[in-house]
């Protein structure tokens, strides 16, 4: 389990993360979404033990990760800017990983290599952006880590390879019970991959929830009455957003869908329609309710 408490990281005068808290359970695929500069990569580097926290702490299975080789041995980090040794091939990189990472598995590496169909003898400089990301992912997965930290996970991958990677990640989580933390600036990329999603905004997590909960506890209601009314009529509900056009109102409501529907029906509306929200809409309204403007770039 990853436990992040009151985590702050500053770069000069700029606070990339500010008093951030989160808990990522073991065996979970955790998605971090946020606009550029929100602090996603910084958080991953702190989880990987690359950065030293200015305040707060990061614990992996109860142990601090910074300057702790035992904890770092359980982590595989694939950054947004990939690193390979100069003029090296995938095979050369595998040799290096075998020397540097205690749990690196040659057998697993071979399996992954055949799954991705990469030429391990070719110079990595000749690889396309997507192929380089595949190579980095192969190496990371072959380390048999307990925690995979993947920054901009699907960047440069085509849909087929995205699916392949998702399948491999699910398999790692299901079979070995490992945890994956994925970041993306695109919500749609993570929507169908993660068990939990967190929205990072200006160095803090403004929203964190299980994906299923997000989708089921927030919904849209279209309602109309044959009498005059205003928003006070719905004061008994947890309404995140209210708009009225003529006699028809649109409400974003949080709560148990059946109970809400039943209660609204009791008000004798002439129109009542309860609609599901897309994950994007969920984030939009949740953030608005928290007083943040939803950043279009994360759609």
């Amino acid at each position, binding site marked *: 389990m990853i436990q992040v408490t009151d985590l702050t990281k500053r*770069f000069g005068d700029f606070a990339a993360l500010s008093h951030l808290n989160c808990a990522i359970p073991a065996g979970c695929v955790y998605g971090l979404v946020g606009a550029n500069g929100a602090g996603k990569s910084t958080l991953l580097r702190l989880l990987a033990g690359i950065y030293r926290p200015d305040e707060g702490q990061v614990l992996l299975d109860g142990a601090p990760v910074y300057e702790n080789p035992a904890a770092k*041995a359980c*982590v595989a980090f694939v950054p947004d800017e990939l690193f390979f040794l100069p003029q090296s091939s995938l095979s050369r990189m595998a040799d*290096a990983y075998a*020397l540097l*990472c205690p749990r690196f598995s040659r057998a697993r590496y071979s399996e992954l290599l055949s799954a991705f169909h990469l030429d391990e003898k070719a110079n990595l400089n000749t690889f396309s952006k997507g192929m380089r990301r595949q190579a980095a992912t192969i190496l990371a997965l072959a380390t048999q880590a307990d925690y995979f930290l993947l920054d901009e996970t699907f960047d440069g991958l085509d849909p087929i390879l995205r699916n392949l990677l998702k399948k491999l990640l699910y398999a790692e989580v299901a079979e070995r019970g490992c945890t994956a933390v994925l970041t993306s600036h695109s919500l749609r990329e993570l929507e169908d991959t993660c068990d939990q999603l967190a929205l990072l905004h200006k160095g803090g997590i403004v929203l964190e929830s299980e994906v299923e909960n997000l989708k089921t506890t927030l919904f849209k209601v279209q309602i109309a009455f044959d009498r005059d009314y205003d928003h006070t009529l719905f004061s008994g509900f947890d309404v995140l957003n209210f708009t009225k056009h003529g006699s028809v109102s649109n409400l974003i409501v949080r709560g148990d869908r059946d109970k809400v529907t039943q209660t609204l029906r009791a008000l004798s509306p002439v129109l009542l329609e309860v609609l599901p929200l897309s994950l994007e809409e969920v984030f939009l309204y949740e953030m608005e309710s928290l007083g943040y403007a939803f950043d279009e770039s994360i759609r």
Partner: protein
Amino acid sequence: MKHNRFFHAGLYVETLRQLRLMGGIYLALCLLFTVVPALLDSLGSATQPQIDEFAPPLFLFVFVAPVTLAFSAFGYLTRRNASDFYHALPMTRLALYVSRGAAVLSYLVGTILLSLLAAALTYLLCGRPFNAAYLPSQFFYFSACALLVLGCALLGVTVTGTLFSAFVVTGIVLYLPRFVCVLACSIISGIAPIFYVNELGPFFNFSLNLPAAATAKLLTFGAIGGLSLPEMMTYGAGALYTAVLGLLYAALAAWLHSLRPAELAGHSAPNRLLQHVYRCALSLPLFLVLGTILSSEDWSLRYSDAVVFWPLFVLGLAVYFVYELITTRKLRSLLPALCVLPAVLLIGLGVPPLAHAYGEHLLRDVPAAEEIAAVNLGVDDGSLSSYPEMRIAALDLSDEDVVSLAAEALDKTVARYTGGEADKIAYEGSYFTIGVRFHLKSGGTITRRLTLTESDIDRLHAALLDSPAFLAAVALPPADTILSVDGPGWNQQDDRAFFEDYRVEYESLTPEEQLDLQIGLPIYATGLDDDLEMPDSGLTFSVSGVEDGRSYYATYAITEKTPQMLLRAMQRINEESGATAGSLPDRETPQFALSEIEALLRGEAVEGFSGEEAAVYDPESESSLLINADFCLYDPGQPRRALSVQMDFSAGDAVRADALELLELLLDCDAKITSLDESVLCLSYFLAEDYSAGYGYSVQTVYFRLTPEQRQHLLALTEPYRTDKTWLP
């Protein structure tokens, strides 16, 4: 799983693999440029290579390789993606640093070791003699230099985040402290020439920092830098200081690497303060020079100085601001840089006047004789000196005469400098300069450079001869401290064995006699009127070695005071010159030309083969072998007599006839010296060595045994042509 917090073997191996191309190229180049010259030299010469001739490429290697290898191994500190990769590895930052640093060091030490061994092996295979005792000295010297440069490079790359700033900081760490010291020392020495700057502490001994001293020597064509290159290579204290400083820098870099934020990669400095420090340090040398110019002219610029001052000032400003622009790439960063400029100007213009004031203070610090407990003659300033000088300098002389004479000389010296006689002292040569360390009764110690008159020297010498401690100090260097002996032996092994036999005879002599055998003693030890005993050519031992981390050299004479060694040396020299024949073939003596006389003497009498083929022509037509010949006569129980023969052949046939008679006489003599119970004649002559190629002359020596008749004949024959000199027994 056990995780070593200090070292990661896997990363060490991986780093060795990463550096193998660069390290391999360095090794190949070093081996190539070591072995090929050694091979060529060995084919053309049978002489023993000097200590600085073993592996020439290493002199460059120790400057270039540590920086490039360190920047390559620690380049991840300058690139964000590489920084992420290495900092995410399951090891501590200390283990990361140590493992990669160890790999760099392995290449450096390995290349140095293999190059030296390759040179030794080449000499061995070519049959060229070499002094194996030089190898450890060279290894230590090169390793120490490489370690210091590596330490600076590691510090540079650790406290910055770009290769450019890392390179700049490496240079600053390696050279700036030494530059400031040299500048301060030169100002102080200029004001107070009596002062030894080493008094300021070991840090001010320029020779201690071997890479900085070598660089200064190269850039100033030898004007600055202390010791010569061969001297540096056996300067144990310098190598030790250099190695320890390198280790300290490396240790400091390790600590800073552990604290260093990974996000520094790509930034020129960890914070604004250090950015100011680096920029100021880079431009400081120029502003210090400006301060020196100003302070030397009492803050008023003469025209000749102004033409240097203003361009330097502009250059200083350019360096200051251009560094800021290169590292930040922002014009707006020039404003905060401008705010800090007064600080670097203040330091640059303020330090030289402080040194100036300190120099003036030193001229006023003159102790009276009553305040002095003892003195040391000669100053152990860490530089190479002769062995007897080292021994004498270690003596605390408290004799009243010596102390009062030293105090008086100090007083007079200061008076000469403050009285405007500095130029006279420096250029006219009317004074003898010696270093004296004063041990004060108050417990302090000061060292001063004194100027003595001839009368002072005579008085000092007389006082020293009455000092038993001084006479007892004249001992031979212990065998286990000797690196090299050059004497009459065939090779190094021979010479060492000869020297140990010489030691037995030497130690049986009185201190005064031992003093007579030492060549190159300081003037106060020999005295002005002392008729220095100069042995025959080849009859000396030149010894060099290291004692207590200090390099030394010494030269000892082989004379009739050491008769057994003298006899063996004569025999050995005759063997080498081939002078085994004692008689001429039966033939009529023709009317020889000058060159034929030379050829005959050299070829038949001296070297034992026909002179026709071995004729050597003197390039100076008026000179000849006989005219240039020096004879020395050893008579049993008598002092040695030097017979300098000057025969002018242009004076007529009579001289030529005498020359031929002398030649006949020599050719009749026996060159097999079996004892010193009968007269022995030493002939030293010049031998042109491959004159056609422009090589010069060497002095050759041969000994002849003389019967009483031959001796009498020789003296009578040469009487009109010679001047004699006799050394006191």
